[in-house]
């Protein structure tokens, strides 16, 4: 098994809703492997999405730490976190989250533009080609099917060649055929680019393609298979 770039050590996450604290994650320790797909499996509300946000450095644990390349995320400045997201992390969402006013290629290009990277258009087209949608480069999101939209989202998540790809219910809004296509792409991302793919899902079919399955229940790891 390759070395893990992402580590969660004794992570707890508590939200304070009024005076009542609510613990969403409890003592999570996890080291998803590079070049492999790790699925976080569990029912709605079990803390999958929170775990992904912590892993993607979008949020910080209440206890414990999330380490990316050996550095704890809560010790990083805002600028360092932004730089981390620009270079090391990619996101794929359940509802695609494409910007409706941008074409497919512009959506894919966006992370590179935000990072002020050179050759953004060429690299975006290359990723679109990789997900098989080069011919849809100029289409607006509403002109694409759900599956196509999610493939564009994957191209966007991978355009900057991140080490970690975080996918939250990537097939949750798709039919089976489209879902399979998306899962195949996620798998290919891990294999071809060596990315650490961390995917939250409550679908057994999606979980089946993962190398490792982490079962969450009420914010705790129930089992790892």
């Amino acid at each position, binding site marked *: 098994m390759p070395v893990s770039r992402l580590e969660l050590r004794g992570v707890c996450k508590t939200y304070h809703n009024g005076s009542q604290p609510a613990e969403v994650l409890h003592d999570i320790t996890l080291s998803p492997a590079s070049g492999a797909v790790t699925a976080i499996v569990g029912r709605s509300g079990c803390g999958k999405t929170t775990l992904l946000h912590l892993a993607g450095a979008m949020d910080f644990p209440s206890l414990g730490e999330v380490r990316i390349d050996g550095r704890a995320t809560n010790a990083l400045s*805002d*600028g360092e976190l932004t730089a981390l*997201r620009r270079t090391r992390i990619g996101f794929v969402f359940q509802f695609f989250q494409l910007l409706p006013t*941008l074409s497919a290629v512009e959506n894919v290009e*966006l992370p590179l533009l935000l990072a002020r990277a050179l050759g953004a258009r060429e690299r975006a087209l290359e990723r679109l080609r990789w997900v098989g949608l080069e011919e849809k480069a100029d289409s607006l999101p509403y002109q694409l099917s759900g599956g196509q939209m999610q493939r564009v989202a994957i191209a966007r998540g991978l355009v900057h060649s991140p080490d970690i790809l975080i996918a939250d219910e990537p097939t949750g809004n798709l039919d089976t055929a489209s879902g399979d296509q998306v899962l195949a792409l996620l798998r290919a991302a891990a294999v071809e680019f060596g990315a650490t793919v961390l995917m939250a899902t409550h679908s057994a079919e999606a979980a089946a393609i993962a190398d490792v399955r982490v079962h969450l229940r009420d914010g705790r790891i129930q089992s790892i298979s």
Partner: protein
Amino acid sequence: MKLLGRLILRPLARDKARTLLTILAVALGVAVVVAIDLAGDAATGSFRSSMETLSGKTDLEILANGGIDEKWIGVLDSLPVNATFAPIVEAQGIVDGVGVPIYGVDFVANAHGGMPDGPAGATISKALAERLHLTPPAALVVKIGGRERRIDIGRAVDAASAEFLAVDIADAQQLLARYGKLDRIDVTVAPSENFARVEKAVRAALPAGYLIEKPGVRNEENQRMVRAFRWNLRVLGYISLVVGAFLIYNTIAVSVVRRRAEIGTLRAVGASRGTVFGLFLMEALILGAAGSVAGVFLGRVLAAGVVGLIAQTVNALYISSRPTPVELTAGEAWTGLLTGMTVALVSAWKPSREAIEVPPTEAMSRGAHEHRAVLRWRRSLAWAAIFAAVAGAMALAPAWNGYPVGGYISALLAIAAMAFASPAVVLAVDRITRGITRRRAESLLAGRSLTASLARTSVVVSALATAIAMMASVGIMVASFRETVALWLDVQLRADLYVRAAVRSGAGEYPPMDAHVPALVAAIPGVAAVDDFRAAEIHYSGERATLGAGNMDIVRRFGRLRFLSGEDRDAILRSLTGHHRAVVSEPFALKHKIHAGDRLRVPVGVQMVELTVAGIYYDYSSSQGYVIVDRSTMLKYLPDLPVTNAAVYLAPGTDAESVRREIQLQAATYGVAVARNSELRRASIEIFDRTFAITWALEAVAILVAMLGAANSLLALVLDRRRELGLVRFLGGSGRQVRGMILTEAAFLGLLAAILGVVLGLALSLLLIYVVNRQSFGWTIQFHLPGGLLAAAVVSVWMVTVLAGLYPARVAARMSPIEAIQEE
């Protein structure tokens, strides 16, 4: 009520910043309208002399240019009518550097009227006595006609805030050297007497040239005289309200789009279209009412600051007035409230209709609403063309009842045309700039966001463009006017020195100069010619004007009076000497529809004199107008009419400064002021600049309202695009980049508004110059484009728009990306 609370009030309370911005925008719009009205009333409400207030009820006033011979008092007293005739002399004195009205009244006759009987000596109003810390009996030194006179004050009378001195008429005539002359006779008819009979008898007894009118007519006449000025101010004030209307429209449109889910649910559970429509109108009404209430009070405060500016203009252009305290009457407060609420309702009508046009099954998404706007841009552009064409046609309409109504309608239609053209312009600019904007994430997202929210963007751009257009058009008009006046002054002020009585005076007042002065000046070595000018007030077709007389031979040889194109200056001026011929100023000709060759009947002294109009000359010193005759014609009818000023032409090579010193030395005892050509020119331009101070103040408010609108709208865009902004953070965007996106949007809005605003501003400036000003004041202004000023205006409004984006940008940068992304 529950629905109103849940659907409207609660969201308004939740979006405090936006609600407050909208209310503030309406408040400012209403405040400007209220302030202009209140300040206008206060600045022009005091044309009635303070003496009228004191002497009580007067039924008729008798007036004449050149003064009334006092022998007519005897004639009137002998009439078989039960009425009293009170002679009055009016003048202006200076005490401690401040002008004070001096009235000469018949103390004996007035003993039974309002004037108190008491020990001998002059009477002072309590307000003036208090200001001067004077307690009668006391002596007061007053400068009259440039000379210091001592007046013994015997008593003080209470006349509210009015400041004046009243002396016995005989003393007044002596002080003013107006022996045997009266300025006015007040007629009081006994209650038992028939008013019409008295009026008829008085008319029959007096010469035809005397004016007999009811008191108040003069006040009405003054009010009428300044009405065009006040109307134009009011229209400028309403532009802020138009900018505010765009904002209400926008707020309700945003509100409808935001509550699409609630609208759908409400309709699905049985709420009628009327209920939904009413709810949104109610929202507008609440915002309108809150803004209007605040606006009325704010207007009252602003009025106090503005009254001085308006009074300055009225004094400079029309007639002396003393500002009265600003009073907010119930009527004016209600007018302000109703105006604000009506504007709110009218602006909210269309977006509220849109809320009910959607069937309950189809959730009204922002996308659908905006998509329709994109599809309709061609139709909007067609409407813009139609509005522009009608605006052009309306601009050609003649004045209605003295008001440039066609010009106002044309201006409103031009604004509407711009508003309808804005979607097409937004799309076009986006298309043109795509190559540049797509290179950076901030500009790419900002540009797309604006076109994606086309309907809303267009409204904000229209509001901003209206403010820019107002600034640009008034700027162009004022600059053109200033340039025209400067050129005219170059032509008009040809004399080297100007001499007048050293007395403060407003427009329409002609303080006399000592009769010896012109001859004294003419005898000074180096003086080539002296043109002594005499002026008297006349009434022509119910309007006031000035009858002036100069030495036409000197004017012809030394002056450069410019006549309307095609008229031969030399021939015209030659034809005046020794004939009943006159030249009239352009405003007079336009107001009374007079052409060269027409005949005028004007009162000169006791007679009605018929004059033939020889020519029409350009003049920018008075909108009331001048009728100018040769001095020989005037002196034939009014031999005692004093000289009011003199233009001194020097022989070539003479030093103007040394001649000025010589005049001041020799005429020291006559109290004259001598101004050099350059000083007078500078003073005239200063007066001009002062008169337009109020318009700049109004523009500042319109810009402020537009800035609030831009902030409001950007805030709405930020709140609506929370998900997108959150996503940008997920995709590696920094808080700074999110802030940059919003500021770039603000800059885009400013740029679009600048493009439309400048085009609209040019159109409005043409309207102001060639229609509104010409029809209101009768002035021909040469168009002059102040490039620097225009660029400064555009850049400053653009910067203001970017500044308006700061708060929304801060809100955007501080949003939690996780909460934003999870909203869907």
